[in-house]
């Protein structure tokens, strides 16, 4: 029979190989799913993974890749710090929305003033909004021991309701003929987060995501705080004996992830999305959880994983127009990826042994 033996240390080889294996398995399972939907699985896979980068119309999609990867990476980097420390912020979607509301709020309040300081101010407001929203579960956790998983998630629904009220109420475009939605920030030069180099998809959010990857790398490799974060997750008792205050870790990790999610929201609302609207958020906050795991909570891994997930978004859109694949198929595909990722992780932590003739 098969028996599992816990490895004394996680395998380095499998640590790198499992994400690739999981993506491969997901592609197989996804092919089966698409075949069940009556689509040719090979064409579907080519449309999702090949055409956007190397196909005929790739010049259009390539720019989109970074536009979609930017917020995913930015949010996932923040989440990964918490996940490393065993602090589960799963409400990044809400913090993302609040960042957008706060940041756009500043921009809309200053309209139509022009000035170099407006965009930086909006970024600060966005960061503050996301941080503030994440501080709610952080404070409830540290003061009242309330489960941060449930609180951060429930706050997503509250943030969505707030977003709706902003879109139809306080932030509605006064010149919008009564339609819901704010002024378009991407048409307001001082507040717009436009492409810095045309055609590349690189806007300030992508630059910020790159910065976050590099900072997180050094934080985890070189800084004592990064060590404390990892220690709190791997050996909470040892961390406490070493004098690490668990409450401080909770506040720092939730605060950082909230701030980054808020920044992502602001960059999105001032750039690609352009305005506060009821359907502004599209689930980046949740997909970023998958990105964080796919990248094995490592900054470089997350950057690669973010690009891959962005590709599934773009490829999914491509497949829905070209093949009529329902948009939700890609969401199911992403969820499946997380299953496989978690499942094959067994190879990292356990040795699988075949033992003859000894049944339980």
């Amino acid at each position, binding site marked *: 029979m098969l028996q599992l033996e816990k490895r004394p240390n996680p395998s380095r080889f499998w640590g790198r190989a499992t994400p690739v294996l999981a993506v491969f398995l997901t592609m197989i399972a996804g092919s089966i799913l698409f075949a069940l939907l009556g689509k040719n699985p090979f064409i579907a896979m080519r449309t999702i993974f090949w055409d956007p980068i190397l196909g005929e119309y790739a010049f259009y999609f390539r720019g989109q890749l970074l536009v979609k990867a930017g917020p995913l990476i930015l949010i996932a980097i923040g989440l990964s710090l918490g996940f490393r420390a065993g602090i589960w912020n799963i409400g990044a979607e809400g913090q993302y929305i609040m960042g957008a509301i706060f940041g756009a709020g500043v921009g809309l309040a200053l309209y139509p003033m022009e000035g170099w300081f407006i965009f930086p101010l909006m970024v600060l407001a966005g960061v503050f909004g996301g941080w503030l929203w994440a501080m709610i579960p952080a404070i409830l956790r540290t003061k009242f021991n309330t489960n941060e998983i449930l609180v951060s998630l429930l*706050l997503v629904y509250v943030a969505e309701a707030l977003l709706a*009220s902003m879109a139809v109420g306080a932030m509605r475009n006064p010149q919008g003929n009564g339609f819901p939605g704010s002024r378009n920030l991407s048409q307001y030069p001082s507040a717009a987060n436009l492409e810095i180099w045309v055609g590349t998809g690189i806007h300030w959010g992508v630059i910020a995501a790159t910065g976050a990857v590099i900072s997180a790398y050094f934080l985890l490799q070189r800084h004592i705080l990064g060590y404390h974060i990892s220690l709190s997750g791997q050996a909470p008792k040892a961390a406490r004996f070493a004098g690490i205050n668990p409450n401080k870790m909770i506040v720092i990790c939730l605060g950082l992830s909230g701030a980054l999610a808020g920044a992502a929201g602001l960059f999105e609302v001032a750039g690609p999305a352009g305005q506060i609207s009821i359907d502004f958020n599209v689930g980046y906050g949740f997909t970023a959880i998958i990105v964080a795991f796919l990248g094995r909570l490592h900054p470089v891994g997350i950057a690669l994983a973010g690009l891959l997930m962005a590709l599934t978004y773009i490829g999914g859109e491509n497949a829905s127009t070209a093949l009529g694949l329902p948009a939700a198929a890609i969401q199911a595909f992403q969820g499946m990826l997380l299953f496989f990722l978690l499942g094959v992780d067994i190879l990292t932590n356990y040795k699988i042994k075949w033992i003859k003739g000894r049944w339980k």
Partner: protein
Amino acid sequence: MDQRAVEIVDLSAINPAVLIAAIMVAAVPIILAAVGELVVEKAGVLNLGVEGMMIMGAVCGFATAIETQNAALGFVGGAFGAMMLSLVFGLLTQFMMTNQVATGLALTLFGLGLSSLIGHSYVGKLPPDLEKISFGPLADLPAVGRMFFQHDTLVYLSILIVGLVWAFLKFSRMGLILRAVGESHDAAHALGYRVIPIRLLAIMFGGAMAGLGGAYIALIRVPQWTDGITAGAGWIALAIVVFSSWKPWRILLGAYIFGGITVLQLNLQAAGVRIPVEYLSMSPYLLTILVLVIMSADRKRAALAAPASLGQIFHTTR
């Protein structure tokens, strides 16, 4: 909303008997999902995928009901669909020893995607009605009849299930074993109990109950299919389990409080209160957070109530 609309607010238009009847219906999905999760957690497993299982139950139940034109079969289909999804969670967490928090999240993300994929072709269809239990003359009683004796089967079934779970956990031998597995899986294993099969059964029961709850939302509460139809009910059910301190009867209390605020805010919206709709609709979530805070503030009690092995991975070499 203009000033005149404010003046015509008439709270007396809200009929208390109808209100209580509506609360009983609103609480059903939460009761079912929460009592299922309670059993799962009593066995020491934390399944955060309740939302995903509920929405799978909703879409499978809806699809079955439409295809067979039979609402009762719809509920069976819903429970079965969600149970299948919970089995994925069971296999991953029990045999592949994955992190339960992450796997539960995966269940929710996958469930939301798959449900919208399946539900795609059912948008805009109307499900068949579920027959109501006839209480004869009881249903005609003034006020009381409207409140308690004119509901569909599931309203009574959900309360019955809470009672059965309570009796099972408190009086039966199997219930005792299940609790032992949840309190200390190593001790239970040493006594010769099969930890993993017991946990798998509990997970499947939790899945089936979440599926029933989800099917109830799609077939009776709404009744229609839209993406994300469960709207956080699964997460609220998880919070209600904490609120109940893992005691079955308290789930009813929690679910009725939640159902109360849901129905009340809908009534206030209809009555045209000056508070914007969006702020009213966030109230159930805020109330749930508040309830969570109150229950967890007393650290000692909260720690005693939770099963001791909750969320821990069980792995044995022998």
